[in-house]
């Protein structure tokens, strides 16, 4: 066996800095908004429900109630703003040898999974996603659950295309 040990020029290695990450579909913003609004409604109604039960029993404590309500509302608004801003950070890219996914505003992360490590791909659509023509792409590796990728909010057509590309690559390697 001829053994070669070429020096790797770190400058010439393909870099993730050069990759143009693609934003996910704008329509997914609506889904985020709907989800967050639902959570807010649930929280606020829980507060009102709590107030109702406490008043029934003890008749007082209205000041506390307003504090709690204010806190919940502030939390909802901040949550909504953060998830809107974070939406812009959700980006992805498919390279010849790997899949890249970036997300997160407060904790920004970029994950890359090499094609050769992908066990299988699946594309799933919730009821809400179907009505907006979106899909989620789940990419599974053999690793800990931490190394699985789930790209939400892709246009349905694109999701199927990516799925086909990856499946072809994964199976071709075998």
């Amino acid at each position, binding site marked *: 066996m001829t053994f070669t040990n070429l020096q790797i020029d*770190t400058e010439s290695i393909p870099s*993730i800095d050069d990759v143009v990450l693609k934003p996910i579909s704008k329509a997914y913003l609506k889904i985020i908004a709907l989800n967050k609004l639902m959570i807010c409604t649930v929280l606020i109604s829980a507060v009102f429900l709590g107030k109702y039960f406490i008043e029934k029993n003890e008749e007082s404590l209205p000041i506390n109630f307003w504090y709690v309500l204010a806190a919940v509302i502030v939390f909802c608004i901040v949550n909504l703003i953060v998830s809107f801003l974070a939406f812009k950070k959700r980006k992805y890219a498919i390279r010849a040898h790997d899949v890249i996914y970036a997300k997160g505003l407060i*904790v920004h992360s*970029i994950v890359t999974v*090499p094609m050769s490590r992908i066990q299988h791909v699946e594309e799933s659509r919730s009821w809400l996603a179907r009505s907006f023509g979106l899909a989620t792409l789940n990419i599974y590796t053999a690793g*800990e659950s931490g*190394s699985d990728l789930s790209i939400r909010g892709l246009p349905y057509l694109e999701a199927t295309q990516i799925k086909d590309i990856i499946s072809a690559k994964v199976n071709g390697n075998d």
Partner: protein
Amino acid sequence: MEMTDFSKPIRQSSKGIIIIFAFNTVKFFKKFFVILVASGVSILKSKSLGNITPTMLILGVLGILITILVIAILKYLNFKFHLSEDDFHLASGIINRDNTIIPKSKIQNVYIKQNFLQQIINVVSVKIETAGDKKSEIEISALDKPTALLLKEKLFSKNILENEIKEPVNERDVFFSVSPKRLLLEGLSQNHFKSFLLITTFVFGLYSEFESYLKELKLDKQIDDFVNQEESTILNLLITNAIIVINVVLISLLFSVIKTFIINFNLEVVEHQKTVEINKGLFNKVSLSLTPSRIQNLVVTTNRVKQYLGLHSLSVKQAMVDAKQQKNFNIVALEKEQLNYLIDKLLLNYTEDQGELAKPNRYYMRISALEILLFLIIANGLSIAAFGLVMLWINTVFVPLAVLYVYFAYKKAYYRISDDFVTIGSGVIDTTTNILQIHKIQSVKIKQTIFQKPKSIASLVISTASKSVTIPYISKQDAISIYNLLLYKVESQDRDWM
């Protein structure tokens, strides 16, 4: 010895009835423990519950035991297995007959275990693990040892050809076996902070429980007087505290030693040509084999005291092993040379000082300082709330400890990236070294919080099939170049990860 013929369906050893019976009884009583105790107590108190007398209760329990015994016998009778050319067949079930067939090539691990009862009646259990979900594993709970070994060998006979693992059958090259003295040292030199905290909280909890009892018994006044007397001088207070601390330390020492002995009793590392076998355990004897191709991460742990005594632990993380077994792939009390030899055996061409040593950014110190400050504030707040301002003296102990914590956390953190390996060092009291092979990486991730962005600092998370390790707080530029390099290596080499 009579060779067992596996080609025809056979039952396990008839002692299996005892094992199944014991196992099911324990399971049954675990499930209904609360109900049984509650009804038992109420019956004993009022001599009857409804119309049930203690005699009837005993009869009832006997009836249940007999039912379990009958089920155990039926289970034993219906549990048959055999081997064909490529598959392992198992028929089981009393009412629902299950027929399980496992292709030999899909078998991932075969364990031989022996719990306390099995040791008494001299049988072993064989556990067959396949890739895939946890339910797909099979346990044959009672075989005599020669049969079990033969079965294990037969199960792997097909795999041997495929994976090119050739094991000399009767050659037992015991590479390392631990002496009781070294186990004792290992137990003594463990990191006692955890058990210390556990016992302290336990004692405090006990004390507050007893407080109400004491009040009830009207003894609290005496105790208070007693305590006041003791606390009259600061010297006395210190002495009482010191005595308490020493006791707690002694208890935690004992605890660690006993735990180490039970888990690692008769630890033995047997070397085969390609694989390494671990045997250990007092009540639960286990026998495991390590296959280099399946190893994902190696974790070496030691600490100052252990280093001095020459004690190193090696924990091997394998792919396709469930979490419960994962704990067992741990070899303790290794000498430095033995450790290096073993690492060399498991990872080809690994040397300790491969690749350039690099350290995290100083930002790491700031973050850990902030963390510990938060902890100090909370601890102070709690102690002031509980004992008043007097407890502020405790900071004279805490603050130096905190400073040491930050200092050591930074001092021990480093990483090396060589041609084939990533080595990451970490730890505060312990010194932990994580080693992974680059071609076994499953994914790479850069993480950066919004506060790290202006300082251009990021962390790198490297995942393999069994563990994720983090290189914390390095400059964004370094992070990206390591990220690119690792991906380049994984993607250009086209080597299998398992």
